[in-house]
């Protein structure tokens, strides 16, 4: 054990004397800290903007004058996707998804004004967040700093010296790993501070923040082990460096894109254009509420009349037009839900496809884990849209009910004057509140990715173990 610490200590002492390495370390720490600060500030601005718009829209809804409820069905409302506090750490798909959802009767709109369609292609170079720094840049720095930890000793002949002095090969590797892990810990420090700050000040879930920290610690440990292992297995420093750089490029730059391409070809999505037409077609096939002879709506009328025990719609104690509105909305919403679910199922299929590539490239597992914990993944977005739709349905049906109960049938059919109800009814409609995943749900959905990442750590640890045996034989 003492030897192990001595080796680590010696390695770190050498590192302190390497100016370029220290400069790199310093730069990355500064970059990480500034990424944390800037993306926190950005997140605050965005969240404040969305909260302000939401408040404005809620106020405007309540301030509408006395009106016919059906006018309010068309007036509708907006909901704005709130931004999770941890989005400051990993923005995930936030920029790639719309945040403004218009809710109205008879239609299901898309969430619009996502950054991706409002930015130049510069956005595609990536967003500077602590997550990006740790996912891509920190491993690269570990490669630069650590590629020579063993290969360098071998080149200078000191490795053989150490081994002949009776230092075990695995002790050497573990000592080197300890030194690199210390560097990794230093790289993780700004992120840990950012996560702590987000939990304390911005209300991020401590459990999710802890999961993020653990995931990135595992990620950096994975790279530290890979760097020591490759450095031990290749004869020359240069070979180790080039090999590790190639590994970094293939695993972190190349494979994720290939995975995304494969996933999108494997499962193509229908366009909104088609979905809209399909919904309209299905709806027309069900029946036309404006046609007095339509079989479906004739049946509906009979059923309503029987329910109230009257013989004509004029005799109903409620406004038949309102009931028709309720029935029509129920029918369209069912279709919307069915098509939206099908589209999202397909998208999640694509994402699962991509996740499977995590077996080839661990960064995909890390990314999944990170976005899930940060609440910036596809599933969180789907939750928002589903809750928005549920809110839309409840609101529209409550307005339709107002039409059925507060406005008389005859009054509603008078073409020269529009019936209105009191504006106080608008206040009665509850505001939209987004319910994020509970910590338990978050951890459950992150579990498969966490298992995959753990698998990678174990696999690379086994490789390192094997490298130790080999080191003892060939050095």
């Amino acid at each position, binding site marked *: 054990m003492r030897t192990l610490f001595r080796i680590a200590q010696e390695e770190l002492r050498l590192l302190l004397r390497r100016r*370029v390495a220290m400069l*790199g370390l310093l730069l990355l720490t500064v970059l990480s800290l500034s990424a944390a600060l800037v993306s926190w500030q*950005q997140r605050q601005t965005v969240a404040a*903007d969305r909260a302000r*718009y939401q408040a404005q829209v809620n106020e*405007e809804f309540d301030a*509408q*004058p006395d009106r016919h409820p059906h*006018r309010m069905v068309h007036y509708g409302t907006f909901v704005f996707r709130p931004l999770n506090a941890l989005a400051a750490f990993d923005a*995930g*798909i936030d*920029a*790639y*998804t719309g945040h403004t959802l218009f809710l109205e009767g008879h239609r299901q709109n*898309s*969430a*619009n*004004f*996502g950054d*991706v*369609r*409002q*930015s*130049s*292609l*510069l956005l*595609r*170079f*990536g*967003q*500077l967040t602590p997550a*990006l720094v740790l996912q891509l*840049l920190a491993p690269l720095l570990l490669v*630069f700093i650590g*590629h*020579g930890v063993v290969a360098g000793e071998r080149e200078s002949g000191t490795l053989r010296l150490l081994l002949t002095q009776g230092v075990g090969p695995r002790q050497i590797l573990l000592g080197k790993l300890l030194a690199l892990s210390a560097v990794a810990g230093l790289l993780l420090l700004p992120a840990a501070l950012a996560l702590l700050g987000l939990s304390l000040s911005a209300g991020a879930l401590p459990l999710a923040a802890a999961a993020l920290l653990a995931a990135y610690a595992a990620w950096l440990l994975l790279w530290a082990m890979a760097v020591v292992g490759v450095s031990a297995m290749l004869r020359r*420093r240069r070979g180790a*460096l080039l090999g590790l*750089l190639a590994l970094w490029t293939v695993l972190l730059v190349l494979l994720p*894109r290939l995975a*995304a*391409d494969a*996933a*999108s*070809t494997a499962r*193509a*999505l229908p*366009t*909104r*254009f*088609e979905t809209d037409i399909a919904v*309209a*077609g299905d709806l*027309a096939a069900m029946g036309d509420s404006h046609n007095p002879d339509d079989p479906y709506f004739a049946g509906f009328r009979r059923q309503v009349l029987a329910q109230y025990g009257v013989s004509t719609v004029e005799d109903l104690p409620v406004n038949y037009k309102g009931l028709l509105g309720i029935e029509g909305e129920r029918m369209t919403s069912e279709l919307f839900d069915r098509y939206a679910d099908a*589209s999202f199922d397909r*998208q999640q299929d694509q*994402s699962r496809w*991509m996740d499977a590539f995590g077996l080839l490239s661990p960064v995909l597992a890390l990314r999944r884990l990170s*976005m899930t914990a940060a609440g910036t993944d596809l599933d969180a977005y789907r939750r928002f849209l589903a809750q928005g739709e549920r809110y839309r349905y409840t609101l529209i049906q409550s307005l339709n009910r107002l039409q059925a109960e507060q406005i008389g049938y005859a009054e509603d059919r008078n073409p*020269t004057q529009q019936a209105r109800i009191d504006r106080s009814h608008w206040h009665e409609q509850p505001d939209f509140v987004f319910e994020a995943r509970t910590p338990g749900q978050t951890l459950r959905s992150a579990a498969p990715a966490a298992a995959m990442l753990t698998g990678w750590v174990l696999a690379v640890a086994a490789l390192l173990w094997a490298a130790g045996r080999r080191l003892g034989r060939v050095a």
Partner: protein
Amino acid sequence: MSWLVHELRLIAHSRLCVAALLILCLLASIALVSGAREVARQRDTLVRLAPLHASDVAAVAQARAKDGDAGYAAYYTFYDTIDPPSAAAFVALGLRDVAPLALRVRALGLQAQLYEGESFNPELALTGRFDFAFVLIYLAPLFIMALLHDLVSGERQSGRLSMLMAMPGAATRLWVRRAGLRLGLALVGLGLPLSVAMAVMGSGGLALAGAMSVVLAYVAFWGGLCLLVASRHWSSTTQATTLMAGWVLLTLVLPSLANLAITQRIPVSQGVELMLKQRQNVHGAWDEPREATMQRFFRSHPEWQDTAPLPLKFHWKWYYAFQQLGDESVAAEVAAYRSGLLARQQWTERLGWLLPGVAAQALLHRLADTDLPAQLAYQRRIEAFHVEIRAFYYPYVFNERPFGAEDFARRPKYLAPERPPQLAWPLLLPLAGWALGVLGLGAWALRRSRED
């Protein structure tokens, strides 16, 4: 020419060189095929949509032609607009993975319809597509580094350097030739698949020339940078480290920092605001005296002033008048929104003067017509078409002319215009400047390093 044979033999003997060149060529080819497949998929989708839309409109026509009310016909009839990919789109897919390929609009307020999005998987969009632009901008520099980083230090480490130095001028000549040859081969590895693919896809000579100049300049820039680093008396690991750090800075860190700055400095919240305001104005019309709305409409559209006065009951002309007034009331916000988006694009292009990767990206996507300006141009075409739609219905609605089946057949059709490829010449200038400058600097530094 014996040096050429000798150098080629050297390359053939270096496993790293051969592998790097072959893999580069392979990746470029895969990217081009993958891009072409994506473009074919987009075209297929458009082909699939056309009959769907036609039958949808036919159903509306059948249901509405009987009563002959143009107001209903205009309300229920959707119009399809399409944005087919250009012949060079497969080179750089750009924003086409997140923007609608086709958008349906109707005669109602356009501003409530124009920003409708497409359903796409944001997790895939976040990762990005594997297209030629990606191979060129991100991967090609890494391969050039692999080919060139130890130009000098490799000779030094193998002990041949002092011998080379003893011959006046020999070393410089050797390195310039060697570097030139390797860069040339990298250029072939990228350019050959590109020219074949662009010829097959019928992108046209101008697009090919433009794309090839971008490839040439970008490869030359990275080659120059490698020469510059190779000329330093550093170990090959230090050189590799420096180059990789440069790559990270130029293609990851600086662009994302710049994006952050641009997003913060040029907010485009006008998009959301115009949508909120347009909705307020459109729906507010239901609570205003209808005559006042009509008078406001007549002020900007006097041609309908002398039509019959509004009846007591609902009339479509009032409806379409307030829909249009709603659009017009946010004209200033729309203009501000667009100019904000264009300003973001302009600053990105200005950034191209400092960052060759950004310039190459902007140039390729302009050529492919898949960038933000392309999206805005599509929106403007939809806007112009929407003017036609309104102009088509208004005579029926305002003059209360019956609208029958033959009138349905006369409705305007959206025609996607031919768009010739555009080369952003002003951006090629800094890219070429960087390439020549750094290449020259690299050659000069190599010569000097011999004299030291």
